[in-house]
């Protein structure tokens, strides 16, 4: 299992490096503009207040000029979770579909290791990378907060990191499930990306469109983001739903993969 765990990391190391770089760049660029925000705090707040209520709701711009408000709007309500979802979706969807797509599944699945253990190794590798990138973003914020004079409670930043991990884990579950149904990597990644974008769109618009109220309680983005952990600390209920939901999806993925007819390219 260890060999397969490290193989999964090795297979994606170039893209992982690119994601690390992208994430750090994203965090650094966003944080570098914070001093100019605080410098023109009053003018900016007045400017933001002039935004239509709808826009302020969509981008959750309450208290934008505070450290928590700025990080929440610029990083933790969209960018960071999206990067983690993208990584979880790519690794998860390609975990089995890529092996089938490239024809390597035939040898792998006739080795003396059960399909369940094969999938568990790949799930473990994907979950670890989601956790790693989340803490990388957190470390980046902590390292730069003094430089840009941004005040943020470490405990609440940690809570936002946990929410991002939970979101990444949930979408990893979706990715593995779709990957276990699909035989083609490209279509699996496409479906997972589509699902996550629709979920995010519904979450963003739910503040404005009353019709979405009925489905909002079932939207994983709502579970991960609505609690606003940078303001309110850990949202235990939302994280619980994401983790349990992710686990259920992964169990379904394992059950499906276990019975699946493996295709050839």
């Amino acid at each position, binding site marked *: 299992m260890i*060999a397969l765990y490290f193989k999964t990391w090795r*297979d994606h190391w170039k893209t992982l490096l690119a994601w690390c770089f992208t994430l750090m760049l994203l965090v650094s660029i966003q944080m570098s503009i914070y001093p100019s925000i605080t410098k023109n705090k009053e003018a900016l707040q007045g400017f933001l207040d002039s935004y239509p209520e709808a826009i302020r709701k969509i981008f959750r711009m309450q208290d934008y000029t505070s450290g928590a408000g700025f990080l929440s709007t610029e990083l933790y309500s969209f960018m960071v979770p999206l990067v983690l979802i993208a990584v979880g979706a790519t690794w998860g969807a390609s975990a089995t579909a890529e092996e089938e797509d490239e024809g*390597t599944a035939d*040898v792998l*699945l*006739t080795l*003396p290791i059960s399909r369940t253990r094969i999938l568990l190794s790949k799930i473990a590798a994907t979950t670890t990378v989601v956790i790693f990138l989340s803490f990388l973003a957190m470390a980046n914020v902590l390292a730069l907060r003094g430089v840009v004079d941004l005040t943020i409670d470490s405990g609440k930043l940690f809570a936002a990191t946990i929410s991002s991990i939970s979101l990444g884990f949930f979408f990893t579950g979706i990715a593995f499930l779709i990957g276990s149904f699909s035989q083609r990597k490209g279509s699996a990644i496409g479906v997972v990306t589509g699902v996550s974008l629709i979920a995010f769109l519904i979450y963003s618009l739910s503040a404005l469109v009353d019709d979405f109220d009925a489905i909002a309680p079932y939207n994983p983005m709502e579970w991960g983001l609505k609690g606003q952990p940078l303001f309110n600390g850990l949202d235990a209920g939302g994280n619980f739903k994401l983790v349990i939901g992710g686990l259920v999806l992964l169990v379904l993925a394992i059950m499906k993969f276990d019975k699946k*007819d493996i295709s050839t390219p």
Partner: protein
Amino acid sequence: MSSKTSVSLNKLSKYYGSTRGIFEVTFDVLAGEVMGFLGPNGAGKTTAIRTLLGLIKATSGAATILGKNALIPNVELRRKIGYLPGIAATYDRYTALGYLDFIARMRGLELEAEIRKLARRLDLDINEHIHDLSKGNRQKVSVIQAFMHSPDVLFLDEPTSGLDPLVQREFEKILDETRDRGAAIVLSSHVLSEVEHLANRIAIIDRGEIVIVDEISTLKAKARRRIDLFFDSKIKRDDFNKVPNIKEIEVEDGSLHCVVTGSEHELLKRAVELGVNEVRTQESSLEEIFLGLVSAK
């Protein structure tokens, strides 16, 4: 060859809709035996092997490998099996050694010495990245993958595809040694000449159904072969009237062309009596043998 059955398929079926798949495939492979598994492309060879290995689920029937039910996942059983898929895909980003070492570790084994030994025999540089290797060299990697852990049962799906003649000869030696130590080998191919000197018996499959399972010698006797005989003088059709096992006879001046099914003995005896000076036998294609077997059924 022992009389112990290593692989047994009993009415094994896999349906993909109504037209594709395999239907009640039945044959046994003994320990120390090479079973040639022949059939045209798309006949069902790969489907039968992949069903037996659990890569696809059987619709019905039974199968055992080394006495264990092959249709339910069994990790311990897989330790004793080697498999070379028809599409021998490997992890291209690895070196050949890296890939083979990964497979060995997945088997819980340390096999570097064996890998190096087989690589030397097959003339493969295992330090090269797989994506830089030619098709033939990639096939060598897959051959090593299938043999390196000294399995008791081997499934080889078109194993010599892309190998040059010299390497094919070494591959055949490795195959012989593996058989001689008592392994059961299923050798799938669509080319008869590739398996006829390696296999003890042959199973022929067509459109998902087994047409025949028999000894090579018996099959050869039944096979259709086109023979051309050239004489110094003119011959007549009537000169061969009483010769058995020949048909589709054509006589042109000093030559006779015909198809032989079974023994050539009487034909050659008569030809010598009439002063034959050249005999040409055309290697039967699988299709010709297949047609011969169907007509003989």
